[in-house]
């Protein structure tokens, strides 16, 4: 291993360059690989930017506000997809946040360590299930369930609201939101649990000593203390939900129009790319799809950035006070 240093003969009089030892090589090699992460990310932005240029030049900012998506006349607008993406992700969070935070409270505050660890293990396994499997299950179980039972049931009670009106197809915004909820709560649970467990023990003890019940201590002391971490987990889940492709593609219904009803079929950015990319003909069509990818990229970048920041802030705060 030390042959490289032995290669320099001791008798040489002039040493014009510094000896290039193992440390410099190792530093340079790892630096190159680390820098490649930055380069790859820049390359991704650059490729998306270039390949979306025909659509960007043709439509400008109206791309984001136009409701029209017509490949035949070469007119493309992203609004129905933006709407679908935002609505399904919002529905997912609406279901997943209370469930996930509740489960995280149970795992960090109530369950015995052994039970908590094995349940957390199962939650992590759930996070590892490939999204196409969720889609497969959703097509054959959730869709009929929504169409035949849940949908009509909800409509009977709340049908006067526009969001629950109209024909129930089984596929649509609500079904996609539900499958997204199941796919995102593992992330909420594991990150929130960490945040809750980072809360110093003294905080709980002080609250309990003042006569608070365990719920009051949890809700009024522990949760506020860990709120940044929990918010971080929610943003992380939001970024996952916005970019989730396969499961949503299989149950969203593929209809590029905006519907008020949550039972109606819709479309999301990721789903339209997955469905139409290989079939797209013509430069404008393809570049419009790439531009959708660019929009999705920017959206998740921003949300992820916020999530990382929040998580960093809580861990710093937690360790400073512990």
């Amino acid at each position, binding site marked *: 291993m030390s042959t490289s240093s032995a290669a320099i003969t001791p008798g040489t009089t002039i040493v014009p360059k510094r000896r290039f030892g*193992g*440390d410099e090589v190792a530093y340079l090699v*790892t630096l190159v690989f680390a820098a490649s*992460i930055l380069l790859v*990310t820049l*390359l991704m932005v650059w490729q998306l930017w270039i390949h979306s240029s025909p659509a960007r030049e043709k439509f400008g900012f109206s791309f984001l506000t136009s409701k029209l998506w017509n490949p035949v006349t070469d007119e493309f607008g992203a609004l129905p997809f933006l709407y679908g993406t935002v609505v399904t992700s919002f529905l997912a969070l609406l279901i997943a946040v209370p469930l996930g935070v509740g489960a995280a409270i149970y795992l960090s505050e109530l369950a015995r360590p052994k039970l908590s660890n094995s349940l957390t293990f199962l939650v992590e396994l759930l996070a590892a299930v*490939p999204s196409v499997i969720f889609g497969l299950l959703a097509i054959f179980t959730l869709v009929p369930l929504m169409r035949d039972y849940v949908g009509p049931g909800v409509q009977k009670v709340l049908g006067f609201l526009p969001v629950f009106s109209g024909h129930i197809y089984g596929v649509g915004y609500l079904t996609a939101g539900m499958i997204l909820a199941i796919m995102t709560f593992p992330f909420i649970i594991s990150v929130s649990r960490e945040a809750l467990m980072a809360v110093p023990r003294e905080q709980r003890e002080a609250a309990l000593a003042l006569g608070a019940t365990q719920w009051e201590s949890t809700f009024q002391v522990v949760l506020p203390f860990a709120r940044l971490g929990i918010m971080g987990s929610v943003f992380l889940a939001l970024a996952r939900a916005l970019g989730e492709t396969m499961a949503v593609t299989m149950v969203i219904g593929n209809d590029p129009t905006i519907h008020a009803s949550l039972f109606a079929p819709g479309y999301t950015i990721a789903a339209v790319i997955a469905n139409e990319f290989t079939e797209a003909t013509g430069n404008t069509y393809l570049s419009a799809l790439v531009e959708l990818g660019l929009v999705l990229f920017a959206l998740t970048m921003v949300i992820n950035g916020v*999530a*990382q920041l929040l998580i960093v802030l809580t861990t710093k705060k937690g360790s400073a006070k512990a």
Partner: protein
Amino acid sequence: MTSRNVRRNAVNNFMLGLCAVCAFLTVSTLFVILGYLLYNGATSVDLNFFTKLPLPPGQNGGGMANAILGSAQIVVVATLIGLPIGFFAGIYLAEYGGRTFAFLVRYVADLLNGIPSIVIGIVAWTVVVVPQHHFSALAGSLALSLMLIPITARNTEQFLLEVPRSMREGSLALGAKKWRTIASVIVPAARKGIMTGMILGVARISGETAPLLFTSLNNQYFSTGLSEPTASLPVMIFQRAISPFDDYHRQAWAAGLVLLALVLLANIAARMVISRGASLPR
């Protein structure tokens, strides 16, 4: 006063109970998924599934031998590209990283990790498929390796940082150079954690569908090289599941069961290794 305490107690019990319900509800979905896949897919996972080629719609039978092989091919190449890059980048972050540049790389790696897989598919398409004018397994592998790099880098970094400082100092005090210390003391000490992270990363990319949809596409037959469109298990599940044929649905369930079993087994094995034999107290 007492009635107020009764109410507080009731609220306490109710809300804590609700949290427990949340926990068991969420965890039970894993068993629902497993049970449903077993119920629908177990009977279709037979020898034919592993050895036969897919048949055209309308004909019953056939298997997914080409998709299994294709998936393996794509994932192996992705692993060969992604793991070394991620591993060395992780060493840089943990051992050599200065303040600003390492922070930047770390932040960007986390962002890269959060980019939707479908967008990574588009990028691989622009880089490989567009210049070559045809779909290929290589493009799929490239897309998957882009997902693997940040996962591996951050995992490696994390486990290297857990190696106690005294081990570094001991090695340096014996006169070993820094690179020597890293190669023969620090990395071996963190070996188990790093391996676990790598297995989890590979398991994660094996189940990815979206980046393969328009990079490696699909193939009715065995592919003969990296530059050909190649069938893969996740894409096959997707296309079979949205098709209108019953026999295709049956095969989608079987393929789903096989894929899930592989991914979960890899996860369980990796986590067992770390929980049992981890050489470091965590």
